[in-house]
């Protein structure tokens, strides 16, 4: 069978499951007794195993199978989680991840997992040899028929039922008993299902659909059913099938549903300690997840589709299509601006009205198109807890990573690029920031260090902060090092502000770590971090208090493709300045420009800021601000520093689509790109950051 069409789906879903495995394992490590988490982990592992086996990735399947065995023991309280078990399981996850990666890059996902498998097996044997035979059957146990009454529902099924009741559908609990002399149990059961599916959806059966269809049940089976029809109708319909003794149909509302579920759970509790059917718990929750039982899977999903039960339903879209959509929309935006211009020239009321309406619609459309490309930073953040855990173990430190604002959204392009810089900053915090336990106690701090990872919106920017409560940055240390490496001279060093000293950390070839460690401190990195972030149109600022901790604050633009900008004129030329870097605009008298130490400064809100003649920098042929009595200025900001750009005139504010200048031209200082104006002309976009050193 051609599996290619399923491969991408398999990879996507495997990654999701691996991610959830990682997350839940971390949670479990904090609450080793929470069996609920074990259940979730078990289900993920089980699904992964099923998918891998279906796709023919045997190593993947066999490793997950062994993990499942261990988890099964834990789940049934035959094994308590301990450190070495966690470590082995984490190792298995790593191996799984690398196999999936191999598959992603076109490999066959084969890998030597025998040592990990052996480790897992020894956990199974060592802890509970008596149970080995039983768990060895693994999946086989899942299929075992359980005979206790009641149906256990997983959260998803429960919420489907709840929702259906809320939406006015009838939720029925049906118990069907076949006649004692029934010859073809499976066939009768099948006929009942068929009859039911004609007028509703079966959510969950007990025993599993698979078992029922194979006749592996006693005379009784029960199910949850969603329909529009009356209970009595359904009852008579079931009784219409031959060889049915009784059909008990109970209509459920919120309360009775809850009761039923609780009863079922209680029944399960009483069965478990007897340990006769440890698999009973497994069969119920894991069946709908299993891809090898298409019938069950279909039933679980169908009501969700028809009832609209799941609020955040998603589809996966190829990122390239979104890029095309974005490009097409950009074209539209340019035409819109052009139309607005034409309409205002034509002075035709009807035309103006139509264009205005179109403008409104297209700005709504723009919001949606931009949102489509937005991805929560969680997709980057989610691997950090695991990374910090491993780092803490390697460095023998105690570190808590606290993530806030993981739902903050950023443009897909930014998300793709920001991972590595953040990894580096986190490693930096864990390695250089947080002190070893002994030092922390000596300094009177709690022995566990805390690293906060925060993301939040502010204006047109998203900020990501990495703040630790570690040893902080000592000015002297940096300066000593900088002097030694010849990055600064002694006289420069004295006059530098703390902020400037901190920025030295980002200088190429600079590292303050006294000893080079595995984790960070090779002197490459922070400068790479900085240049990466700058290339994304962002910026990094460091705030630090010696002895108290350090905060790396990364500022990023919300999107890379459409921005709000101020259009300005320089003689006959037009330029765009991104609004995000503009503080304000003003008009100043020539006499107010002072010469200070050879550079021209201007008084602005109680401080002196440098004024830069844009006409000189860009060699504008037909404008020179020196000739003017009064000069328009745009005050721009980079971090805490301000500067004024002297310009000819303001045109106005506009949404612009960022285009690059083409591959032929080299990078131009002060120009970050180009945009197409409403009249079809190209205007260059000024990179305000380049004017502030």
């Amino acid at each position, binding site marked *: 069978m051609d599996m290619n069409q399923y491969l991408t789906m398999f990879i996507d879903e495997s990654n999701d499951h691996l991610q959830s495995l990682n997350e839940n394992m971390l949670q479990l490590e904090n609450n080793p007794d929470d069996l609920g988490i074990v259940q979730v982990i078990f289900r993920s592992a089980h699904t992964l195993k099923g998918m891998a086996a279906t796709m023919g990735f045997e190593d993947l399947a066999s490793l997950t199978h062994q993990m499942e065995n261990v988890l099964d023991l834990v789940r049934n309280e035959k094994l308590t989680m301990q450190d070495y078990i966690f470590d082995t399981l984490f190792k298995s996850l790593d191996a799984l991840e690398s196999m999936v990666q191999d598959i992603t890059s076109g490999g066959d996902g084969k890998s030597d997992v025998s040592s990990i498998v052996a480790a897992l097996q020894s956990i199974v044997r060592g802890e509970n040899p008596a149970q080995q035979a039983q768990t060895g059957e693994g999946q086989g146990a899942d299929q075992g028929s359980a005979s206790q009454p009641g149906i256990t529902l997983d959260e998803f099924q429960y919420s489907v039922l709840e929702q259906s009741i809320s939406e006015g559908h009838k939720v029925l609990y049906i118990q069907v008993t076949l006649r004692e002399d029934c010859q073809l149990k499976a066939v009768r059961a099948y006929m009942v299902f068929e009859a039911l599916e004609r007028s509703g959806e079966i959510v969950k059966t007990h025993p599993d659909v698979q078992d029922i269809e194979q006749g592996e049940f006693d005379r009784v089976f029960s199910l949850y059913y969603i329909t529009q029809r009356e209970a009595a109708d359904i009852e008579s319909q079931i009784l219409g099938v031959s060889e049915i003794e009784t059909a008990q149909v109970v209509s459920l509302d919120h309360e009775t549903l809850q009761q039923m579920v609780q009863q079922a759970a209680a029944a399960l509790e009483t069965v478990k300690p007897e340990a006769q059917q440890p698999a009973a718990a497994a069969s119920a929750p894991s069946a709908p997840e299993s891809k090898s039982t298409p019938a069950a899977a279909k039933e679980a999903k169908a009501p969700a589709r028809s009832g609209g039960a799941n609020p955040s339903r998603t589809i996966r879209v190829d990122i390239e299509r979104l890029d095309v959509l974005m490009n097409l929309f950009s074209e539209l935006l340019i035409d819109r601006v052009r139309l607005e211009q034409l309409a205002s020239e034509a002075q035709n009321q009807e035309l103006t009205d139509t264009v205005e309406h179109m403008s409104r619609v297209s700005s709504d459309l723009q919001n949606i198109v931009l949102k489509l490309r937005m991805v929560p930073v969680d997709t980057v953040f989610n691997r950090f807890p695991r990374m910090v855990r491993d780092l803490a173990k390697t460095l023998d430190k105690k570190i808590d990573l606290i993530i806030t604002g993981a739902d903050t959204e950023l443009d897909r392009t930014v998300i793709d690029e920001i991972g590595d810089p953040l990894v580096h900053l986190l490693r930096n915090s864990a390695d250089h920031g947080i002190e070893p336990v002994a030092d922390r106690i000596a300094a009177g701090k709690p022995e566990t260090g805390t690293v906060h990872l925060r993301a939040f919106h502010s204006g047109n920017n998203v900020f990501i902060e990495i703040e630790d409560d570690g040893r902080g940055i000592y000015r002297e240390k940096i300066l000593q090092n900088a002097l030694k490496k010849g990055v600064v001279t002694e006289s420069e060093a004295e006059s530098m502000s703390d902020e400037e000293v901190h920025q030295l950390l980002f200088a190429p070839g600079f590292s303050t770590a006294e000893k080079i460690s595995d984790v960070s401190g090779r002197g490459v990195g922070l400068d790479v971090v900085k240049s990466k972030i700058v290339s994304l149109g962002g910026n990094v600022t460091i705030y630090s208090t010696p002895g108290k901790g350090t905060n790396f604050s990364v500022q990023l633009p919300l999107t890379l493709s459409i921005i709000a900008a101020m259009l300005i004129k320089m003689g006959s030329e037009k330029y765009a300045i991104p609004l995000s870097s503009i503080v304000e605009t003003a008009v100043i008298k020539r006499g107010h420009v002072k010469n200070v130490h050879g550079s021209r400064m201007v008084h602005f809100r109680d401080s002196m800021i440098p004024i830069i003649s844009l006409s000189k920098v860009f060699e504008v*042929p037909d404008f020179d601000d020196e000739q003017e009595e009064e000069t328009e200025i745009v005050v721009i900001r980079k971090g805490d520093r301000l500067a004024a750009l002297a310009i000819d005139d303001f045109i106005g504010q506009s949404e612009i689509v960022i285009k690059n*200048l*083409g591959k*032929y*031209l080299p990078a*131009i200082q*002060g*120009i970050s790109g*180009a945009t197409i104006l409403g009249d079809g002309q190209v205007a260059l976009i000024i990179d305000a950051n380049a004017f502030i050193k």
Partner: protein
Amino acid sequence: MGEEIKVIVFKLGTEEYGIEVDKVQTIERMMPITRVPKTYAFVKGVINLRGVVIPVIDLRGRFGLAEVEPTDQTRIIIVAVSDMQVGFIVDSASDVIDLNTDDIDSPPEVVGGIKAKYLRGVARVGEERLLVMLNLSEVLNKSEIIQLEGLED
């Protein structure tokens, strides 16, 4: 036997030059060009070609010939070479002709002031006409430009 190729013919001064048709995207009339500051002198700026921003270079300037004011004959030839789109300002673009690659001879050292490395060869068309074939990837080679600029500074 060489292969038959189609060649766009354009003029700089009195010389005729050729570029293979499959490297040429379109030929445009002169249009407004936005000046780009602080770049090579022969880069005239950027144009908006149906929503794409494309840098335009003056081919005369590129070859160190005297630049002239545009006329109604002036054209911008948009070429695409190895993912780069660039516009060439030329005096006029007149013709498309068929050429056999066998008819292209290796170029003499200097043709009309242009160094041989920018040329692919000289093709004889008919009795009288000589067509100078451009070596586009050399014309657009940036590392060489950087050297050039370095010498001028």
